């Protein structure tokens, strides 16, 4: 059976589990022929799956819930990432030590669906995001790299524990020059990389069966990657068509990713879901979602796959 998987971002260790599963033949064992489509800065995985370009996609929950409210019925069928890797990284010498110090600063934030946790964090802190002021911050739409921080165009930027943060370090900055605020620690973490499919498809037993096998194999891939991070990183490198990734960076990323997937067997923890929803509902003046979503996740697949 053929399955097309749309990734959220470019080929990197963040998706090691899927590449490992493919490379190690876990998918094949399940009788699946999986095509992995890399994402990119301007690809919305939700849009791809809506158009029928993929069967299943890796997406973050805020974006998936937002799409659901827009009328695209996405359902979470598995959640390999237990913890959130997003954080805000700031210059220490700018005088920032606690979230309160963020006021009157310039902050770089990712948009394209990734801005939601930030917005709800700010609204929890009671910080206005429409411009620099005594009680407000200036928000920049951050590009794909860490230049805004290095060039000191922003005091803080969004980073992932497994990727951008290390790019800052690679640029020669030492960790003690930096201050980081993990969303996980601030209580505004939202669920990241999960697997989503269209709701309608779940009423088709053949599709459900396919997904069960897919999730089973993928989780096998993830657990293998957690145990063999270096090998997993090399597999990822082999699948990177740009030739831009470095081995060192990917190996380190794999080790960081392993921290996030650890503790997940693939099944979504409803408590995490509740927390995510609550965070999003508190999203300030322009909330991502306006009401509690119903039926946005299911254990139907994971129950079958993992037992």
């Amino acid at each position: 059976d053929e399955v097309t998987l749309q990734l959220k971002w470019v080929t990197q260790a963040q998706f090691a589990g899927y590449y490992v599963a493919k490379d190690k033949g876990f998918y094949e064992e399940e009788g699946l022929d999986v095509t992995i489509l890399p994402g990119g800065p301007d690809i919305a995985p939700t849009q791809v799956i809506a158009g029928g370009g993929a069967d299943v996609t890796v997406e973050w929950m805020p974006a998936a819930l937002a799409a659901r409210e827009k009328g695209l019925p996405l359902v979470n069928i598995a959640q390999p990432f237990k913890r959130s890797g997003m954080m805000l990284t700031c210059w220490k010498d700018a005088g920032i030590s606690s979230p309160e110090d963020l006021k009157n600063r310039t902050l770089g934030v990712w948009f394209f669906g990734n801005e939601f946790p930030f917005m709800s964090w700010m609204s929890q802190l009671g910080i206005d995001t429409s411009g620099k002021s005594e009680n407000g911050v200036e928000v920049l739409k951050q590009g794909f790299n860490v230049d805004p921080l290095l060039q000191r165009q922003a005091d803080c930027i969004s980073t992932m524990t497994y990727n951008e943060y290390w790019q800052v370090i690679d640029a020669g900055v030492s960790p003690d020059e930096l201050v980081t605020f993990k969303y996980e620690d601030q209580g505004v973490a939202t669920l990241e990389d999960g697997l989503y499919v269209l709701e309608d498809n779940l009423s088709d037993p053949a599709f459900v069966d396919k997904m069960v096998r897919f999730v089973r194999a993928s989780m096998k891939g993830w657990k293998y990657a957690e145990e063999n991070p270096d090998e997993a990183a090399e597999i990822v490198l082999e699948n990177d068509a740009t030739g831009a990734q470095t081995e060192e960076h990917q190996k380190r990323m794999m080790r960081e990713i392993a921290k996030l997937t650890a503790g997940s067997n693939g099944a979504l923890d409803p408590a995490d879901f509740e927390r995510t929803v609550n965070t999003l509902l508190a999203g300030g003046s322009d909330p991502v979602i306006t009401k509690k979503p119903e039926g946005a996740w299911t254990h139907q697949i994971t129950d079958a796959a993992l037992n």
Partner: protein
Amino acid sequence: MMVGLAILLWLAGWWLNTRLASGPYADTRAVRILAPLIFGLTVIGVWELLVRGLEVPLVILPAPSVIWDRFWDSLPILWADFVQTIIKGALSGYVIGCGAAFLMAIAVDRWDFLRLGLLPVGNFVAALPIVGTAPILVMWFGFDWHSKAAVVVVMVFFPMLVNTVAGLREATAMQRDLMETYAATYWQSFLKLRLPAAMPFIFNGLKISTTLALIGAIVAEFFGSPTLGMGFRISTSVGQLSLDMVWAEIVVAALAGTAFYGLVAMIEKLVTFWHPSQRG
């Protein structure tokens, strides 16, 4: 059903235009305006019917009516984006880029050595995919409109330079000899002959640059921007699957582009009223 209606509408629109084009008023101004209008309306009608008929998901292609609603509902946002991107980014870059190119063209025209040396290099640079410079310029000039203006400057500079240089060489040998027999100075012959003769070319460059300026300003916003601007809105709206918003921005871009182009074309008509292409 809707699809059939769409086909019918298409045929009707085409038939109407055929009638207009071969009718007795084919050469009048009214038909010149009417025919493309009918064509445009037909396309919009067909689009609406097809989207409804084929039940195309909103997140792939919204129907024109949806876009229309979104457009009217979001006027303040669209206006703010317009000011940020078009007025601040595109327009300032356009003025600076075209102005600089004009001055450079005078220098190139004045010193033959520059023309020989700079033009080939200029042509090479013009072949550069300027979009690629956007991330670099954003890195250099920051996130606000300055970097957008810088991208626009780079994009319009060479088309404008090449056109102006060609225009300044446009005066015929005879016209230049005439100036020679009057023993006119360089600047006299520049102001009274070469500059007016170059006007059609200069305006050609200015017209090409209008669309380039818009594209440059919008694309540069993809590589970093404040939380404002047409490029910002387009990319974040795609992320939020608000495709109606994306298309509303596209409508703004097309309107602004057409108006900008039309304005320059109008000024051209006033300034180069004497040129055969304008006398029609």
